[in-house]
């Protein structure tokens, strides 16, 4: 029900594009779609601090830019700190009357590498300091910009150029880092997961996050056909399957309270998600079973936390 409504309700979103077309992302890039939706959700009164990564490279080749809102790229690991600076400057300059008083959202945007790996310290610092900003992680589950190297956000079993399938090792040997839980552990007012395959859910969460006083964190699964070795036109379907199999549940943590946004009493088999991605093609039935067990266990934990468990 919810799904079908989403498909049509997307037409109710603004026609305005703040992340302009003509950028250089790959075909079927769901990260670019996520960013476009985030930009639509926030409108023009925003300042974006962006990390080094795919979205920076596809959108800002000097002297061109895809950005119709103020956009600032400094480095890879410091996006949350740069956003802290922007937010503080806005606050103090408005207080001193040097710029007009109005609501401007400070948005920090980084990929999974820039968030869960190299940018984790700066992010933790900014969340702890309590800056009034929104941090969006667009997670495509590896360092795609540099050629598909593994990150701590790469799922178990996935083949990347630094977690290859060899004679003794079958892709990524570690489990995906739970970044939303780490953000939530900072006791910030709002944490959510989202996926551009559920555009209305994504837009609503980003709007909500932007209107909350204090730090907010939104973690967006972003299907990457290039890195996942999937067919570009399947990107939306893959995002849906990630949610429907319980691999990437959509939930919110508001003031510590978990809420599963779309609950599935019966999850689809993870195989449906895994078997259409080249990065998983080496996985044996046993490995897939192992993944499914873990997915179900974590999903149940989430349901329990959301007050929906048995």
């Amino acid at each position, binding site marked *: 029900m919810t799904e079908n409504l989403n498909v049509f309700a997307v037409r109710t979103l603004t026609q305005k594009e703040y992340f302009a077309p003509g950028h250089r992302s790959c075909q079927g890039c769901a990260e670019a779609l996520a960013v476009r939706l985030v930009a639509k959700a926030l409108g023009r009164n925003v*300042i974006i601090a962006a990390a080094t990564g795919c979205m920076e490279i596809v959108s*800002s080749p000097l002297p061109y830019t895809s950005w119709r809102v103020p956009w600032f790229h*400094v480095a890879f690991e410091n996006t949350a700190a740069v956003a*802290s600076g*922007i937010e*503080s400057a806005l*606050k103090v*300059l408005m207080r001193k009357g*040097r710029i007009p008083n109005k609501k401007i959202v400070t948005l920090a945007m980084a990929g999974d590498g820039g968030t869960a790996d190299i940018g984790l310290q700066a992010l933790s610092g900014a969340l702890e300091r309590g800056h009034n900003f929104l941090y969006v992680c667009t997670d495509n589950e590896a360092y795609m910009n540099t050629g598909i190297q593994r990150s701590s956000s790469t799922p178990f079993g996935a083949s990347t150029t630094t977690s290859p399938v060899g004679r003794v090792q079958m892709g990524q040997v570690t489990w995906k880092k739970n970044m939303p839980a780490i953000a939530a552990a900072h006791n910030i007012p709002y944490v959510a997961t989202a996926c551009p395959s559920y555009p209305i859910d994504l837009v609503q969460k980003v709007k909500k996050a932007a209107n909350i006083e204090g730090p907010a964190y939104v973690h967006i699964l972003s299907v990457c056909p290039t890195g996942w070795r999937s067919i570009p036109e399947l990107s939306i379907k893959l995002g849906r399957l990630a949610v429907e199999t319980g691999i990437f549940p959509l939930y919110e943590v508001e003031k510590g309270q978990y809420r599963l946004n779309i609950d599935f009493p019966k999850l689809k088999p993870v195989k449906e998600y895994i078997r259409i991605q080249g990065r998983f093609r080496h996985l044996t039935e046993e490995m897939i079973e192992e993944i499914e067990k873990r997915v179900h266990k974590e999903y149940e934990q989430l349901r329990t936390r959301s007050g929906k468990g048995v």
Partner: protein
Amino acid sequence: MVKRVGMEVSIAAAEAVKQANVDVISAYPITPQTHIVEHLSELVANGELDAEFFCVESEHSALSVCVGAAATGARTFTCTSSQGLALMSEITYIASGLRLPMLMIISNRTISAPLSIWNDHSDTMSIRDCGWIQFFVENGQEVYDHVFVSYRLSEDRNVLFPVIINMDGFILSHVIEPIQLIEQGKIDQFLPPYQPVHRLHPDHPVTMGAFALPSIFAETKKAQEEALRSSMPKITETWKAFGEMTGRYYHPVETYKTEDADTLLVTMGSFGETASVAVDKMREEGRSVGLIKIRLWRPFPFEAFKLATQHAKKLVVIDRAISVGACGPVASEVKAALYGNDQRPSVYNFVAGISGRDVTPSDFGKMVDKAEIEIDEGNKEGFEIYGVRG
């Protein structure tokens, strides 16, 4: 009325930052920089300074916060030392590449290993090429004064570069000196609020920090290089304006008893005052020795340096850092500056006072003695670490 107050140099630095009406301060504590941030946090806590103050989780973030705030149009301040500077070095290059005005005070301290909290210039030399305007100061008054000079210069629309003030850790940062404070009214006139050309604001969206392909990168670097070089007249102009306000005049290269001197000591930072005592003594003994103090490290004042050394026969360059495998960084700069001259002095290079080891007036005397003998004996490009065992 001009007040002359005895205070710790770090406190004087913090007081200057307050008087400069900074908007955003972001720093991470490291010895010997700590007293500056401690005092600033007190000023903010007491409501004496209206600024956003953040003790962040690393120096890398400290400078990143300043970069974000400066791009949004705020006057920002940070300070650090040693390992902290090494950690933030990535962002030092970006701050200048983005042409963002800001001030950083470095309480110069040794870079590990071995770990040492004491003073030398190895920290700042590690970011020599980061594209900031870089001053070295000799005493507390110069630190205080250069805070105002730096902000005015940094925010000048014909400059727009971040500025570093290097002050020797402990040797300057932790001593109490008489400081002539400047009245707030005068400072407000000398340093009006920062008005950026572009700022991050939704009313006028700009993209900052775009990436460059090889087809355009070199042009952007050339623009930066030319801009830093051509900031020289603005630097001297700003010092002049400051001098007119306070009576204290500064120059890129300062000379002390250099008239007709055959041998010149060359120093940077707090060495200058000690070396001048040594020069006085040698002059009393009838020796032809003078002193050159390099105040402006970047952009390097090639012309002023050549002018100041044109009649000298021997230069004794005292470095407080080593470029391991080469020589002292000041010495290599000095040699580069003089290479084009037909008549150039011999350059003898000592590395002295690393990791805060005391260098007394008599040490300067001994170094001059040694250099003169070595040069006379034909060793015209000597390099040694002074006073070291083994």
